[in-house]
């Protein structure tokens, strides 16, 4: 590990992109992630990266499509409304099976919304925000260190599975400063052969075609089945999550990103009050840690999902819990961040509530 630095999440992510051997960044400024473009504009080109401010998000994602097709490590970043504009391109990239990195520093919505932190893009990120049957690998950092680390991991996963990887952060993680160290990472050692890349057909090389158009239904279904097989492999191989005080927990909180940090504090406060609370933090949102949640649900009295949205991940948690115990949800929206005290109050209610009362609230 290298030298310890104090950096903003956005800057740490940008620095990591250069160190990960990203050769092309294409983006358009939007708060709260403009520091990524700003940092890369200054530091990228001298270190071998093409950094281009495109005319729009639609152009950005299609430039990523092109650069990734040529076999280069390529990325873009934006925030919620900008990511919405990219969905068509993302669907094409997923269909063409091109590795690349997309970063969404989530802000409050819908619409142009607010620039404050939000997790309102969970559905869009994990359920296929664009058209057609496809999945992104979605990593959710909860610290500045992970804003950096997940860039390396993201590019490696993208290359391994020939699939776009999305880092889903939020405004607070982009803006806050924490300690960060960059791992020793030599992009050359992580370079894999890309025999599909359209990097020139000179010297009698066989013609290669990258396309997302498969007009014959039989060919299209063949591709759909191959994609599904790949997504199933990803579900088997790439689930990531963190447990905090979960072993003896009576009440299990499930939260990701910034919400997980807040929930962690709430767990500490609850434990000080003699309530055995614990936390499961999904790190990969796709693939979702369904099995881990299901296993814990058999041991706890209740599950609480904390999100900065109107209740999105809670649907996946309920699918995992399968009614084994009551699942409650708590969240704030519009760029408001829930406080540890608010979460604690809900934990205390759950702790004091007779089973029937909690169960009723599930169906409200």
């Amino acid at each position, binding site marked *: 590990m290298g030298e310890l630095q104090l950096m903003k999440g956005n800057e740490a992510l940008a620095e990591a992109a250069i160190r990960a051997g990203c050769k092309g960044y294409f983006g358009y400024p939007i708060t709260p992630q403009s520091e990524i473009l700003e940092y890369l504009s200054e530091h990228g080109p001298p270190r071998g990266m093409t950094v281009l401010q495109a005319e729009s998000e639609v152009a950005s994602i299609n430039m990523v499509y092109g650069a990734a097709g040529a076999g280069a490590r390529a990325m873009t970043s934006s925030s919620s409304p900008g990511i919405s504009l990219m969905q068509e391109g993302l669907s094409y990239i997923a269909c063409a099976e091109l590795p690349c990195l997309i970063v969404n520093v989530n802000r409050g919505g819908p619409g142009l919304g607010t620039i404050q932190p939000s997790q309102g893009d969970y559905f869009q990120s994990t359920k296929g925000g664009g058209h057609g049957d496809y999945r992104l690998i979605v990593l959710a950092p909860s610290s500045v260190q992970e804003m950096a680390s997940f860039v390396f991991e993201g590019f490696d996963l993208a290359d391994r599975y020939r699939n776009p990887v999305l880092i889903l952060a939020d405004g607070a993680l982009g803006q806050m400063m924490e300690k960060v160290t960059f791992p020793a990472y030599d992009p050359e050692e992580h370079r894999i052969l890309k025999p599909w890349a359209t990097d020139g057909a000179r010297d009698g090389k066989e013609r290669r075609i990258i396309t997302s158009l498969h007009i014959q239904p039989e060919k299209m279904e063949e591709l759909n089945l191959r994609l599904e097989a790949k997504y199933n492999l990803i579900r088997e191989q790439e689930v990531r999550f963190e447990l905090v005080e979960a072993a003896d927990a009576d009440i299990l909180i499930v939260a990701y990103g910034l919400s997980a940090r807040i929930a962690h504090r709430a767990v500490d406060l609850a434990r000080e009050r003699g309530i055995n609370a614990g936390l499961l933090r999904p790190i990969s949102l796709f693939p979702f840690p369904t099995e881990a949640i299901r296993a814990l649900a058999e041991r706890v009295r209740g599950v609480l999902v904390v999100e900065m949205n109107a209740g999105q991940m809670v649907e996946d948690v309920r699918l995992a819990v399968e009614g084994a115990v009551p699942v409650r949800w708590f969240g704030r929206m519009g760029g408001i*961040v829930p406080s540890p005290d608010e979460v604690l109050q809900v934990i205390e209610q759950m702790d004091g509530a007779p089973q029937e009362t909690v169960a009723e609230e599930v169906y409200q």
Partner: protein
Amino acid sequence: MTHEILIAGFGGQGILSLGMTLTYAGMIEGKEVSWMPSYGPEMRGGTANCIVIISDNKVSSPILTRFDMVVAMNQPSLEKFESSVKPGGYLLYDSTKIVTPPARADVTTLPVPAGDEAIALGNPRVANMVVLGAILDILEVVPVASVLKALKQVLPERYHAMLPLNEEALRRGTKFSRTPCEAGDSPM
């Protein structure tokens, strides 16, 4: 030991850089740290604040609603965040910018005439360093030497000629915190 501090004031008063300097010093001391700025549509003359956490343990939530210390560098910030000090905590404010002093009896209020001191030093912009000096003396969160090292990192190089003035302001600040109004006393 964990210190959870909110620093608030007008945009342009050096609120964010004050917090950043403190955070950097914490890192130099080998502590776990986080610095969370308010980043709304802020501008010069608007309000700005940041949350600084310096701890021996991993920092859980970087965003909090109750603090060991609130530092208010203007009247609107004092009014907004007076209620956010934990009982028994500290409410430190720039007394030269406060018309209505805080009323809480269950916290220690610390008036520091940072604005006046900075003007006496010849530059009103170092009021934030006077305040930082006062914070360091009260909380003993990091040594002054580490803060001076941090200042070199946080202050852009083109301003390094200002380092001695900042250091002087910091040292002046440490004098004022030793005469706090005890809980319930009127600070005026």
